[in-house]
């Protein structure tokens, strides 16, 4: 369908047992997509966690997702960052590349271009750490494929609105 949109939604929840299962179960039970989902405590004093979920669907589905999320009892706030104006989105990836010779040198060169950091190395491997938009990570990972890419670990996107506005 042509009208599928990708939205980044931030959900502020009470950090209590089962809350992640509630959110994930909502998506699977109602057949919504999860492109990525991250969660961590963000406010210890008030016991709040923030879930960032990247999802895609028709505008009607996106509206449903937000309404359904808001309906969960431990959910405090639901913000559609994609709808609410400019925001920044970042993801972190750890990328392991194994190889020798020219491939190894080329991978290091590209890592430098992409500003990935080497956080572990042996004589025949690197682990790169890279932060950026998901698209940038995708591009780097694609480049690493012929150069000995063996393993990727990604956080999924986290996002926050630009400017002084806050939750």
């Amino acid at each position: 369908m042509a009208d599928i949109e990708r939205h980044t939604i931030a959900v502020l929840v009470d950090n209590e047992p089962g809350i992640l299962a509630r959110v994930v179960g909502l998506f699977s039970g109602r057949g919504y997509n999860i492109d990525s989902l991250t969660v961590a405590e963000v406010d210890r004093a008030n016991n709040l966690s923030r879930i960032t979920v990247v999802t895609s669907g028709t505008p009607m589905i996106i509206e449903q997702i937000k309404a359904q999320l808001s309906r969960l009892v431990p959910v405090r706030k639901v913000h559609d960052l994609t709808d609410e104006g400019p925001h920044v989105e970042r993801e972190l990836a750890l990328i392991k590349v194994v190889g020798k010779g020219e491939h190894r040198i080329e991978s290091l060169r590209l890592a430098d271009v992409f500003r990935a950091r080497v956080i572990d190395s042996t004589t025949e491997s690197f682990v790169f750490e890279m932060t950026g938009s998901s698209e940038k990570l995708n591009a780097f990972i694609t480049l690493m494929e012929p150069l000995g890419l063996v393993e990727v670990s990604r956080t999924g996107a986290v996002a926050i609105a630009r400017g002084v506005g806050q939750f």
Partner: protein
Amino acid sequence: MSAEPISGADIVIKSLVDQGVDVVFGYPGGAVLPIYDSLFKQNNLRHVLVRQEGGAVHAAEGYARSTGKVGVVLVTSGPGATNAVTGLTDALMDSVPVVCLTGQVPTHLIGNDAFQEADTTGITRPCTKHNYLVRDVNDLARVMHEAFYIAKSGRPGPVVIDLPKDVLFALGPYSEPVHVEHKSYRPQTKPDAKRIDEALALIAKAERPLIYGGGGLINSGPEACARFTEFVRLVDAPCTLTLMGLGALPASDPHFLGMVGMHGTYEANNAMHDCDVMIAVGSRFDDRVTGRLNAFSPNSKKIHIDIDPSSINKNVRVDVPIIGDCGQALAALIAGWAKVAPKRPPAGRARWWGRIEEWQSRDCLRYDRGRKDVIKPQYALERLYALTKDRDPFITTEVGQHQMWAAQFFKFEKPYHWMTSGGLGTMGYGLPAAVGVQVAHPDALVIDIAGEASILMNIQEMSTICQYRLPVKAFILNNQYMGMVRQWQELLHGGRYSESYTAALPDFVKLAEAFGAKGMRVTDPAKLDDAIRFMLDTPGAVVMDIAVDELENCFPMIPSGAAHNEMLLGPEDEAKKPVSEEGMVLV
């Protein structure tokens, strides 16, 4: 705060009493023994012992739907909790306020595959409005009170509280219910004034308005229903109700067109299709109501009043969403009407009523009244209605053809008198629901309109009925088939009646007697009235086994995948309008 700490089990009982609960439907077991012990030592709370936990939840639903109060269930861990799942899902789908207390193995055994352990909060997460596992007795009183608030406020629903056995024994503080604003859960009840004005402007100009009320009205309460009735009369617009909304407007009101939807009336469905302004109040555009979505009421502006924001634009895009309690929204609409009310009705109004009368003249609920050799199910219900209407009966149903006929042929004048499983369509709902209704209204006439297949799904509750001497009347339309299954097989599967015929049915008269009730079988239409009178005159529980026309189908019908103006009115249409291929895959 009470001065002395008390046991978790006592906290449970005290909270229930303070929440105004007078009866609990339940079944004991190892993990909830401390609660049963506390129950034993007090006199404020009554316990009704069901015969299977599923029955307890339906009984609580019947209690809740016939009183507007929260129904309470008490079951043990493991199988007790899993047996409750169908009832909880039913309550979720139909927005019935239920609090279900489940026992759990002691906290140190959780996750250990202990005896009668189940991940109750995990299993019930998708079938409750909210659930809790209470690991600390210090949280117990707060959770108990919060659960009642969540169950009955906003869009009501079931709440599960899972109670590990050690928490029930532990000593902790009790606190009385006080209203504290919940930190995240705050349903919006007050409608947006701007939206109300937009709605009024649309309604005032409508040439072909239609008001479409649903179960939200019943949930909001008799006051909301009275306002609804006032509003319908004020605007002088035709009105239809969903299966769950029956009773929100008196059926005798001339504005009432009958039920809408798959087995709704010809006039209601055609009015829905052709209206220019639709006012949906506490109804959710369910697929049984809308039929084929892309042909649903194509030329209307739609106003949707609902307390649940997720109901808005879920299936059907609406023009004026009004989020809030329907009683409050209706009050605002009524208050604002004088300002916008046209001096003369809009030009097309008279013509609109004329068309409605034409549709009504098709007499869509007609059936072969001439048959003297066999009881037509519709006839049985017409007679039941005629002979009971002066006694203000409470009707519960099972699920299937009999349910639809009951919805078509019984006329409800007020809310809280019609208990049926709409969203989930749970066969076996009616008999246990009747238990709950009768417990709430001991002197009332309570009838479970049943099919022989459905009632067998929870027939064990006859034993509960007899234990508590509940004068429930089970009115079984016995066609020996799962009638609705058979009807669909006839319509969609070439009449191959795969497994829809019950070859070995019990003798319902003897079955009733075995439980300690009266049983009666009727096969002759001429004897039906006397049999119904006998049923009404018998003080205790009665099972009426009415042998009805086995092959009768329920009409009118919007076949799946069809639009409102493509109804089948009777068997003669069935042959003319075969079901589309897209319709075949729909349920």
